[in-house]
């Protein structure tokens, strides 16, 4: 943890510095720097294919960096294997939910806490915590997760990430493919998590929603950060409004 006595601004919990990422010869992210201070919500908005998901995958260790570094709490985790990063406090709710389809809701949640090696009693308590956040999951606890609706699967994906007891929660397109009412529910949950002090890095195509909950936001275009500011600033920015919020917002 950062020293509270430091007079300068504390180092951010997550620091992405000059990161470049490539799929073979195709460069997807170029020289991107992002900081996520502890206790804040940071949003990355941008069009489909801008490199948002690629960046989150790299933060989780699913994609090797071709340049730059990733620091968590000051420690360089750039080359740490993916399965070890969750133990450092990073958990991802992936794009498209990606719940384990043949396993039940409860089993999916328990897998989220795999690295913590909890006793069954503590595991049950942690599962109950997720049910408190997402009551609909409780009704479905013994159903295979493939039978859940898209919104329920999204709740499950977020709950599964929370089961890891993360210090940094990464949310990749939580609104993807969901009905407006369900999206509202999901964002209410995100706001509650924010208010409880969770540090969140949120990637969204629905820029208006993401900017509304974000303390800081970055606009990613063709793999580069083209704009940054507070969520409110970007919400009011005419260029952002024209490019991502569309007419009528």
């Amino acid at each position, binding site marked *: 943890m950062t020293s509270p006595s430091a007079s300068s601004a504390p180092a951010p919990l997550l620091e992405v510095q000059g990161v470049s990422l490539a799929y073979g010869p195709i460069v997807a992210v170029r020289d991107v720097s992002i900081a996520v201070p502890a206790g804040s919500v940071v949003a990355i908005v941008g069009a489909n294919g801008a490199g948002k998901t690629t960046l989150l995958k790299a933060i989780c260790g699913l994609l090797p960096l071709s340049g730059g570094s990733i620091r968590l709490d000051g420690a360089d985790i750039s080359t740490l294997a993916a399965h070890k990063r*969750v133990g450092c406090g990073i958990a991802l709710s992936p794009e498209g939910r990606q719940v384990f389809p043949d396993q039940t809701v409860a089993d999916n949640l328990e*897998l989220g806490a795999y690295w913590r090696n909890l006793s069954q009693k503590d595991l049950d308590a942690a599962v109950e915590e997720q049910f408190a956040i997402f009551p609909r999951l409780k009704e479905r606890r013994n159903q295979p997760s493939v039978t859940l609706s898209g919104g329920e699967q999204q709740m499950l994906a977020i709950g599964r990430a929370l089961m890891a007891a993360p210090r940094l929660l990464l949310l990749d397109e939580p609104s993807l493919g969901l009905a407006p009412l369900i999206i509202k529910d999901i964002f209410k949950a995100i706001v509650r998590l924010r208010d409880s002090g969770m540090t969140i890095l949120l990637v969204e195509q629905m820029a208006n929603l993401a900017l509304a909950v974000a303390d800081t936001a970055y606009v990613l275009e063709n793999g580069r950060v083209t704009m940054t500011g507070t969520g409110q600033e970007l919400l009011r920015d005419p260029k952002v409004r024209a490019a991502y919020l569309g007419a009528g917002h």
Partner: protein
Amino acid sequence: MSTLLQLVVSGLAVGGVYALIALSFSITFTTTKTLNFAQGEFVAAGAFLGVTVLYLLAKMSGIAPNFASLPVSASAGVNYPIAVLAVGVVLGVLGLLIFLAAIRPFAGQSGMNWVMSTIGFGIIVQSLGLAIWGPAPVNVPSPLGDDVIRIMGAGIRPQEILVFVVALVLMIGLDQVMRRSRIGKAMRAVAANPQVAALMGINVTAMMIGAYALSSVLAGIGGLLIAPITSASLFLGMGIALKAFSGAIVGGLDNPRGCIFGGFLLGLLESGVALWNAQWREIVIFGLIIAVLAIRPNGLFGARSLDKV
């Protein structure tokens, strides 16, 4: 009636081994998307390693046994269980080796290099076996003795019952482990989505090594179980592995329970058709496999790709 009983018992015994090996194919396929084409050689290696352990145990107890036809006492008492255990350990190590040597370098890559590398690994194992044990088949005594039991007029070999029971217990045990234990659920998570499994903190490579080790253990034990019925031969595994693979394909390679069903189905069919006309056995069985695949390309219980969201 007595022939029917005999047919069912021998079908269940051979089917049990097919089911065990079919399950072993499914285990590596679901977790790594690769298959061990050396599985037949692993079956034979299991049989011969088992015989070797029985031989050494007999020698230690003071008998001067003949390797090619061990006395019944060689398998008696704890000897056979010890042999099964030893085979399990050695084949587990062999599974680790084949993963590191023949699968790991190609995992996650497109292409079929692992097909050739596992076949090559199998040929190496077989050649080593020939150098150590020679090409002659070896009779293996059953731990329950080789006297045929008469039940309702049917002649049943005790080993047939043992094979069926052991195979069934192993498979039910594994099924429960995969469904209920933490490690089993983690393994299924790796099978469903290795990237997301890694996000849970699951060491995906370790799980894949475990899958290969487990799969190889099943192959080796399958070989030692069937050896007292067929006699051990270094060429024994190929046919068994091919039938087991067929059973896995018929049942659905990605569905462990389907594979077990397919293995038993093939064993029963085989003994049924053989009773009617031995020459037609292979023709009927493989004709049926082709027909099943034509109608259900993913096997009887395999997930159809269309069902995947």
